[in-house]
């Protein structure tokens, strides 16, 4: 089995009007066996910045922890919150350092600029190639299913509530067509003054 499909998992981020949303499934499994249903794939990296990682579970944790370390040093040296675009370059750099023995994790970044509050989403591949889009980004074992759902459901300039509904439906229906993702979905909606976190009731098979 492919290394990226060992543990399973999926992450999706969408852009709305003045807000972004990021969602991930909650299954942690080893091949066919489901080990737990409360795996954390989305990590807070700033006041309005979240990083989601899909792929091999051990590398998801390692990358998140090493990145947090670098981010803490940045904030101490600069004395300010990092911009999402700069954070993307930091992630890209960390991943490319391991070009010939990579971390098997594919990140998705969602956040608002700390000053202008402009929404920003991007994803990277496992060796750090960044891709910024204006609509949605995703990674995981059910990427094809998620692309299909997002292409049909996404529309520009969605308000936070509408964005939440859209990303939830896209995620729930995509993971229901993947054997190694699912077991619950957690959704974070980042607006200028708050982050709303909701856990969705999903099929547990």
């Amino acid at each position, binding site marked *: 089995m492919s290394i990226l499909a060992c543990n399973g998992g999926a992450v999706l981020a969408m852009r709305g009007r003045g807000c972004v949303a990021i969602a991930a499934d909650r299954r942690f499994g080893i091949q066919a066996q489901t080990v737990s249903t409360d795996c954390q794939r989305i990590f807070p990296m700033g006041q309005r910045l979240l990083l989601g990682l899909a792929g091999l579970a051990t590398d998801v944790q390692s990358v998140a922890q090493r990145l947090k370390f670098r981010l803490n040093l940045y904030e101490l040296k600069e004395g300010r919150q990092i911009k999402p675009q700069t954070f993307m370059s930091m992630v890209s750099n960390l991943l490319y350092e391991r070009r010939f023995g990579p971390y098997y994790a594919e990140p998705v970044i969602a956040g608002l600029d700390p000053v202008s509050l402009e929404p920003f989403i991007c994803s990277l591949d496992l060796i750090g190639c960044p891709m910024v889009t204006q609509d949605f980004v995703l990674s995981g074992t059910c990427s094809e299913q998620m692309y299909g759902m997002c292409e049909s459901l996404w529309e520009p300039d969605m308000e936070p509530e509408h964005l939440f509904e859209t990303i939830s439906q896209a995620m729930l229906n995509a993971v229901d067509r*993947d*054997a190694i993702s699912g077991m619950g979905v957690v959704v974070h909606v980042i607006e200028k003054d708050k982050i709303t976190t909701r856990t969705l009731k999903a099929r547990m*098979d």
Partner: protein
Amino acid sequence: MALASVLRAELAEFSPNFPKNFPKNFPKNFPEDFPDDSEGIPEILRDPPGPPRVLAAPPWGFEAEPEGPGLQILHGTTTLAFKTPHGVTVAVDSRATAGSYIASQSVRKVLPISGRMLGTMAGGAADCAFWQRLVARQCRVQELRNKEPVSVAAASKLLANLVYQYKGLGLSLGTMLCGWDKRGPGLYYVDSEGQRVAGAAFAVGSGSSYAYGVLDRGLAAAARSEEAACELARRAIAQAAHRDAYSGGCVRVMHVGPDGWREVSHHDIAELQDKYLE
């Protein structure tokens, strides 16, 4: 010979060319002299020329199996069946996967063989569907000839012997034949490796270990009533669907009793989640 006769829907002993006054007229050099009854079969479907393949495997076994990992993982599914004094309770999930893609959540994994017998499907869907339908046909013919319903032991033997001829060629079948005959409830596990085993309870498929865990705990209590047995079967499949990535969809519970088989219940796993899983 074997394939041609199967496709013409006749076993050797039902063929009009079968030697008269068997066994006195049995050819001395079996199988070379066995009459060839493949006229009328298109060229492409005939067996290759030369002495017909021996029907049974040589005693030293086939070397066709490649030297791979010892255990062959059964394809994604969970099916189970167990005997109680009231009959045989059968429960199956309904998921079909292609790799990690869920191809369907509504596959029918129970195949009726006769009014009093069911077969479950695990392994290759086409293999199970085809061979069990063939066995169903054989059972009906036998019922008409003998004026008596066919026994579970006989039906399972028919299936086992049919697939054994293709051992090593890549058939994938892991099925349970569940029925009620004159000896009471009958349950046999038959697979494409040639195993045919009678037993009181079986679980087959990638989720079978999880199902066994729940099943073994409640088997004694399940013998009390048909309702308790069906509840246990439903719970075992739901638990297996939760833990095993390749099982899921719906749980279908069937029961085979002295009056024949019937579907007891059909629930989506999402409905049963709150009841059985935290």
